[in-house]
């Protein structure tokens, strides 16, 4: 049944126009490939945090998690609430490696840590992962809009990919981050709105809660059953498969954390994501299923409602024209905020790992043109992959199978690469090649997964593919590294846990001093020919010395660092304490307004 009124369609069209205009507006801040891919490394932690959540929540999230929430209850949240254990490795090891190492792409890390051959293999796997991810998101939104509004699946995918690619083409990473903020707020608001309207429809919060059965209220599903949503399979697939892939091999997320003004802000962003925004997002994407369950118990919805349609049915039942359109627009927002990140990621890999290798030594404008062209190309390929995902039985199976099949070799290689200095290039190459072959074998002969079943029935074994992959790939990695002939000595400055300090030295060009955070100061700009200089008193206030890297930003915090710049502190000046001398080129580069005050802080 086609749902939606002219008001709803109008709201969706307004949303498209708004997001296209808003995203394209930031094109004026893109002057180089650094701006296009990393937004000039200037953004605040809260902006990056919201952006990460908008990326995590894809269009499939509302449909998929509402479906499992309707069938299995609060355990639908478990996939969003098990990321925290990854924090130490991300915050203490991976973030400093990528940030101070100025690593622009995952394949680049492979070349610097191992060799060019592993870079090529990882490039192929990564492109399959990213382009496939774009395809599955476009497919999901196509299915949702086909059911709700009667739109053709392919036509929907094409329209959305086109809008996304257009604003991405203009503003790159800055557009991604800024539109993601709007989209994250929109999808979280929509999720909370569904719950409020749903409770209103049911009667009260108490009526809702007491109507739900005991098993439905548990935070984890039963250990090894049912086959399609058991705890142990989901745990290995999501906590160790999807989450690890998200934080370690998703090029878009890597670029997001390289866009922060400092690793300190990257850490804060991750805290915000894991502790606050992910629980909120888990609630937002799944509560339509819980509301649907309670409504069906109270006879407000047919009890035999198809779980895959529950999100649409609940939203349609509890909203009025206009609100329905807003929630559908939020669904599109969830999709676009995921896809724009992936498109930007593909463009970065395309330029850094393909074009600059084939056509080296060109100027930055040449590569910027290619970045924009590849953004459009990635959107087209994503649309072309939609028919492939149409062949799967359900969205959950398609998504899970795809992630679990592609990611383990890459995850294991990166983890061993950053944690184990002795881990060799040969071991990495074998892990990528034979690990991928092992994953293909498990798809062709799923019976092999029985070894890892934990008592899960045969129909649910695909969820344990991640555990199988991680075990096999770890085995290959360890065996190949421990071979007597495979010892190697390599320059690993800043690329493994042992050498993070050396990475900081290389980043700064001197001994780092990032322990004393100092204070943030506010001062007026005075334009000079070049460099940055503060008074001696202000330098002491910042606990900074000449040669330290400073972050100078427009004093309006809500800009999130849009107008800001990193620069090395020069010798102190003798003028007034509330004055900062800044070179003309830095003012232009940071989009700073000389009539406004700026804040300054020491980075390292």
């Amino acid at each position: 049944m086609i749902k939606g009124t002219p008001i709803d369609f109008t709201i969706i069209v307004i949303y498209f126009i708004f997001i296209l205009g808003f995203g394209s507006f930031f094109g004026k801040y893109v002057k180089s490939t650094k701006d296009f891919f990393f937004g000039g490394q200037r953004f605040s932690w809260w902006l990056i945090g919201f952006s990460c959540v908008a990326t995590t929540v894809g269009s499939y999230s509302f449909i998929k998690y509402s479906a499992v929430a309707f069938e299995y209850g609060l355990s639908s949240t478990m996939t969003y609430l098990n990321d925290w254990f990854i924090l130490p490795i991300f915050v203490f090891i991976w973030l400093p490696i990528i940030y101070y190492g100025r690593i622009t792409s995952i394949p680049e890390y492979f070349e610097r840590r191992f060799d060019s051959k592993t870079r090529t293999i990882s490039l192929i796997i990564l492109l399959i992962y990213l382009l496939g991810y774009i395809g599955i998101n476009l497919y999901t939104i196509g299915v949702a809009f086909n059911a709700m509004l009667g739109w053709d699946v392919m036509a929907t995918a094409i329209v959305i990919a086109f809008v996304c690619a257009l604003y991405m083409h203009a503003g790159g990473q800055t557009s991604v981050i800024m539109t993601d903020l709007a989209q994250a707020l929109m999808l979280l608001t929509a999720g909370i709105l569904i719950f409020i309207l749903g409770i209103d429809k049911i009667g009260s919060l108490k009526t809702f809660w007491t109507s739900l059965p005991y098993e439905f209220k548990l935070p984890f599903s039963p250990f090894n059953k049912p086959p399609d949503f058991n705890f142990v399979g989901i745990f290995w697939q999501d906590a160790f498969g999807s989450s690890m892939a998200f934080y370690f091999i998703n090029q878009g997320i890597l670029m997001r954390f390289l866009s922060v003004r400092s690793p300190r802000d990257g850490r804060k962003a991750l805290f915000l994501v894991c502790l606050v925004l992910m629980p909120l997002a888990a609630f937002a994407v799944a509560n339509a299923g819980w509301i649907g369950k309670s409504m069906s118990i109270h006879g407000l919805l047919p009890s035999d409602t198809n779980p895959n349609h529950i999100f649409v049915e609940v939203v349609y039942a509890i909203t009025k024209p206009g609100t329905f359109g807003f929630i559908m627009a939020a669904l599109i927002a969830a999709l676009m905020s995921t896809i724009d990140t992936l498109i930007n990621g593909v463009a970065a890999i395309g330029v850094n790992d393909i074009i600059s290798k084939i056509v080296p030594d060109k100027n930055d404008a040449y590569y910027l043109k290619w970045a924009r062209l590849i953004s459009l190309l990635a959107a087209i390929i994503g649309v072309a992959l939609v028919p492939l995902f149409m062949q799967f039985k359900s969205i959950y199976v398609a998504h899970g199978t795809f992630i679990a099949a592609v990611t383990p070799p890459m995850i294991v290689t990166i983890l061993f690469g950053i944690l184990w200095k002795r881990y060799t290039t040969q071991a990495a190459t074998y892990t990528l090649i034979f690990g991928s072959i092992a994953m293909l074998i498990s798809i062709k002969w799923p019976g092999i997964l029985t070894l890892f079943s934990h008592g899960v029935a045969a129909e649910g074994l695909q969820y344990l593919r991640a555990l199988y992959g991680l075990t096999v790939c770890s085995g290959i990695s360890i065996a190949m590294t421990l071979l007597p002939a495979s010892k190697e000595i390599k320059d690993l400055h800043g690329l493994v846990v042992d050498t993070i300090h050396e990475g900081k030295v290389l980043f700064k060009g001197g001994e780092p001093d990032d322990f004393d955070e100092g204070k943030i100061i506010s001062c007026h700009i005075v334009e000079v020919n070049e460099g940055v200089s503060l008074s001696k008193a202000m330098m002491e206030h910042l606990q900074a010395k000449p040669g330290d890297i400073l972050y100078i930003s427009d004093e309006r915090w809500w800009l999130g660092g849009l107008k800001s710049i990193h620069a090395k502190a020069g010798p102190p000046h003798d003028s007034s304490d509330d004055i900062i001398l800044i070179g003309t080129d830095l003012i232009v580069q940071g989009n700073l307004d000389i009539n406004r005050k700026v804040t300054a802080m020491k980075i390292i």
Partner: protein
Amino acid sequence: MMSPWLPFIYQYTICSFFFIAIIILSIKKKAISIHHPTDRKILLEIIAGYLIFIFAHALMILFAGA
């Protein structure tokens, strides 16, 4: 029906092993230093966050019957 605590114990046993091993490795390899206030503060924040999740999941199981 299996105990609702089994998934809880399984998840936090495996995750805690990974969590603690990485912290020990980071300290041992000098990626962080517990003698520096900033690093110590981050470490305590991360451990506190982890305990919050353990506590929240345990509460959810306990209150499921309410």
